[in-house]
């Protein structure tokens, strides 16, 4: 880690030195202005930082998408099992749905939570402004507090249904999950 810092520092120092040496040649710049090359480098770095943030958004959406897709598959299994009066099969499928919806609520499982914790420990808050406004839990990227609560409620309800599955009640709960999921999708441009 320390070696990496030394390398980055050395590169920046060389860039800075080069920029200052080159600076007198630029007549249009007033004395003491930040050299254009440094600004340009910073622009590139900003692009990278913003891209990383966007990538984080995409990655978390992918994690959520995988959980949602898995929940859909398990819902299909649950429907089929209920129809076939296979209560054991329905129970297993419904508990998997409940676990998937809980993952939506928690924006990933506990392994993802550990990563989020690490980012928070490093001072990274993806939605710092949203957290300030009370819209997001610390470190959450996509799932709002409102959505989290809706997913939590639904996950427990679906889990409880597993012991005595009923098709109608299940569809009602799933509709809530679906509706909440839709609120988290980016608006079409």
């Amino acid at each position, binding site marked *: 880690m320390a070696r990496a810092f030394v390398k980055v520092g050395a590169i920046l120092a060389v860039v800075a030195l080069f920029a200052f040496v080159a600076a007198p040649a630029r007549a249009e710049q007033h004395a003491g202005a930040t050299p254009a090359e440094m600004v340009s480098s910073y622009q590139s770095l900003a692009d990278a930082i913003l891209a990383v943030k966007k990538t984080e958004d995409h990655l978390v959406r992918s994690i959520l998408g995988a959980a949602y897709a898995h929940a859909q598959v398990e819902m299909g299994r649950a429907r089929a099992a209920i129809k076939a009066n296979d209560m054991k099969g329905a129970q297993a499928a419904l508990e998997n749905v409940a*676990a998937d919806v809980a993952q939506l609520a928690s924006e990933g*499982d*506990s392994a993802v*939570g550990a990563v989020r*914790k690490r980012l928070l420990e490093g001072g990274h808050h993806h939605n710092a402004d949203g957290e300030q406004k009370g819209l997001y839990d610390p470190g959450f990227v996509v799932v709002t*507090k409102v959505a989290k609560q809706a997913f*939590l409620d639904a996950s427990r309800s679906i*889990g409880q249904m597993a*012991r005595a599955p009923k098709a109608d009640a299940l569809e009602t709960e799933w509709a809530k999950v679906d509706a909440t999921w839709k609120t988290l999708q980016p608006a079409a441009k």
Partner: protein
Amino acid sequence: MGQGRRDLEDAPAGREVGANRVPVSARRSAAALVLLIVIACAHRGVPGGMATGSAHPDPGAAAPGGASSWFHFVDVAAAAGLTRPYLAGRPGKDHLLDSAGAGVAFLDYDRDGRLDIYLPNGWRLDGDRVVERGTNALYRGRPDGTFRDVTAEAGVGGEGQWGAGVVAADYDGDGWTDLLVTNFGRNLLYRNLGDGRFENVAARAGVESPGWNTGAAFFDADGDGDLDLYVAAYIDCTLDDVLRARPTLDWKGLEKVAFGPFGLTGAPDRFFRQEGGRFVDATAGAGMTDLGLGFGFAVRAADYDNDGDADLYVANDSDPNYLYRNEGNGRFREIGVWSGCALDAGGAAQASMGIAAGDGSGSGRLDMVVSNFAEDFSTYYRNLGDGFFEDASEETAVGPATWKYLSWGSAFADLDADGDLDLVIADGHIYPQIDRHPEMVGTYAQKNLLLENRGGMFADVTAAAGPGFAVVEASRGLAVGDYDNDGDLDILIGNLDAPPTLLRNDTPQGAWIMVVPEGPAGGPPPPGTRVTVRAGDRAWLRDVAAGDSYAGSHDPRLHFGLGGAERTDSIEVRWPDGATVTLRDQPVRRIVAVRRPR
């Protein structure tokens, strides 16, 4: 007994402790050997006819906020000989280890029918210098209610490790209670040799697991008849980290305090499967990998979903709590979030420290109260059945009553034997710096809480519970047990930089019975055993746990407050393997041992 009800004052005097063996019939097998041992019927202040339930007709002193109480507790620790202080790092609590303290345990290591006490100890530090390594303490109970320090002769001083927790259980099934001492360092497994001495077998048993170990629980995870082990761990750090630590965390812009747990890496909990006296790490195979690296503090095994096998709950500091549901065949599934007991009602992870498990609502299911950090509710998780929970902290009033306290060890216990479970919670802040700011909520040393169950609502009766509850310390571990065998539950509390508190219960009591389920060869109650007592139209459930509260162990005997009942209709004992014995029509105010049929 200054706070007692007038109608209880003329109660008959208690009888001498005695021991009789009375044969009883067993439901399961005519050949079953059932020994009903009436160990004691002595009781101080037994009421002649107490109303069942929580409606107290003649309450004693009034507590602030309108709550009143006849509870009366007196701290008798010093008089009883419990004098060894817990050494807790540096005065400024520069590292979280300085302020974590340890659990405490009631046990009966010598099988004399009286409770003994085990207290882990920490270290005293001065800056980055180790000044003193504390010695753990084993106190042997005497018939007069005092204790004798037998640590040295028993060989259980802790070997210079920094003690964090203690679990009392007969892990090897030889009929003698052993001790697992969890440490910041290597764990110790003190095997009871049966002659008053112990030997540390942790290395050869495979449970040393160096690190910052905290709460632990012995339980039969796979139904094979022996006890397996789960050990929670807190933070991944070294002794050097601890010694070099200085308060660097900016706390509310007022003070620099000990850093963490955010910013530090959690240490993984571990599950060990027992194979003939050796413990093998089976964490991954059992489905118990601590993927979130939660900051683990407390562990409580119990059959939360009433399906006949042992599940496991883990309280994590600042992370979602875990509920491992037993899937059979030694496999578990972590279902905390979707079962409703990982987060609070608002979906937030809390800074959880301790666990109380018990049938607080009289539903026949085990609720949980998870104690949490200050300026936050301790959370009452009501069991909805099938292992699902809801946060009932507001509804039960437990949340508001605990909000300003930083809470640790806790227990459900029927402290007045009126037929419902009250709550007792040990409190104490982790930042001594708070005392420089009277404008802040709370103080470093705090009073402990007594919440009386009044029909499912919990009233804070602390201020009217006698001088014992006026004691103010930075408390951590808590265990309940009847150390003087008088039929009521007393309370043992561990304190930082101070000797423990032993709260003798002088509260007027309703009828009670204490049930001691034994294995086929006798010995301490096997963890996971459940007992249901019925009288009239009421039923009471208790279970045996080895590992409870905050990294400690309660009296393993099961105490039932029965209110006004004069006899029990039935006492049903169900051992972890499903064997069941039912005793009919038993008199109350006795300690009854029930041996499992072979």
